[in-house]
């Protein structure tokens, strides 16, 4: 075999035209970013449509949907102690202030056996306070703020909005990703984060709502400010982790409340 031919073969081995030269990692980032943008837009779209129709929905329809969706949700603990009675009194003060809360759920209040400081409301209007919160917080103004925050979610129909958004996004993404596992996975991961950002917007609205209620009842918002200062003490997560949390960071919420004053 002559020398030239051998060199030619060697160069063919070294220089491979069959393999693409693009970097797999950059390709990955471009693809994920593209899909993220598409789904962010989809979320905005679903969000707008959901809010548009749900804000115009009649109360009867709301009740119908709530009853359909909360079938089978039953509280585990139903003991009535001092704390619950105190909370019920606060609730009875708040409900007459807003038309959106009247004539719907009776807002029963329950204690939830957990040490974390938290409170939440289910779609059919059951309000849960964790044991940790009830032992930590005794001040009536602070409890009023928390209660108003949860009722604010209900008054804004946040539960229905997030439900409608999930349904729209799930529908469209299942069409997109039919038969493709990876896209399902990516979309799921991205939409998890987007879902949280949306709920933080709702949290901000609920904070504002609760702030107004506290103002109406007491003439100042000391209760809210105190609550956030308490949370700030308890919190240890750094602020840059914000994108991953369900609520805005405490210092941001505090700022918002103080601006409202």
């Amino acid at each position: 075999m002559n020398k030239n031919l051998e060199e030619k073969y060697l160069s063919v081995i070294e220089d491979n035209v069959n393999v693409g030269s693009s970097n797999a990692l950059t390709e990955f980032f471009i693809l994920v970013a593209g899909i993220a943008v598409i789904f962010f837009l989809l979320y905005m779209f679903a969000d707008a449509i959901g809010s548009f129709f749900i804000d115009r929905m009649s109360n009867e329809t709301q009740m119908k949907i709530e009853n359909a969706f909360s079938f089978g949700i039953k509280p585990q603990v139903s003991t009535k102690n001092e704390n619950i009675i105190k909370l019920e009194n606060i609730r009875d003060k708040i409900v007459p202030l807003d038309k959106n809360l009247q004539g719907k759920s009776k807002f029963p209040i329950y204690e939830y056996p957990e040490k974390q400081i938290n409170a939440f409301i289910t779609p059919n209007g059951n309000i849960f306070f964790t044991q940790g919160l009830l032992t930590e917080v005794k001040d009536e103004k602070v409890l009023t703020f928390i209660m108003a925050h949860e009722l604010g979610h209900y008054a804004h129909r946040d539960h229905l909005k997030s439900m409608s958004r999930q349904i729209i996004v799930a529908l469209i993404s299942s069409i997109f990703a039919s038969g493709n596992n990876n896209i399902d996975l990516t979309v799921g991961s991205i939409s998890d984060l987007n879902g949280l950002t949306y709920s933080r917007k709702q949290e901000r609205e609920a904070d504002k709502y609760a702030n107004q209620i506290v103002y109406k009842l007491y003439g100042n918002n000391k209760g809210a400010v105190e609550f956030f200062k308490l949370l700030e003490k308890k919190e240890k997560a750094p602020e840059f982790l914000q994108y991953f949390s369900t609520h805005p960071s405490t210092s941001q919420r505090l700022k918002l409340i103080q601006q409202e004053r």
Partner: protein
Amino acid sequence: MGDVLLLLIILGFTFMTGTIIEKRHFENIKKREIALIKKPIINFGAKKWDTNRKIKKIELVTGECVISGDYFKNFVAGLKNLFGGRLTTFESVLDRGRREAILKMREKARGANFIINARIESVMLNDTYGQESVPQCAIIAYGTAVTYE
């Protein structure tokens, strides 16, 4: 949240391991190809072949390779399915598989003067649309090794 982290960890890990394995495989293939550079494959497609020299042995030689991309490559390719285009992550996998199969065939024909009428076939081993399946490809190279006396 946990799911996202887990996915990112798996992707990062498989990207690193996949890159290392692919680099080593390519180095290995290059070394063997250079070693075999003087063993030609002749592909003229004729059914009838004549020679004046005396033939000692004619035999069928085959080389197989079953190859799969790593998790990261499959993931990127899956995303690319949405937009279309060249699946560059799979190109390197296919290239490795093909060269490996040809190399095995040539190594099997040790002692032969050359291989005539070499062919390459590829078979999908796994159903790509199944839930748990991994795209795998079997590549078979075969030809006739001719040894002169």
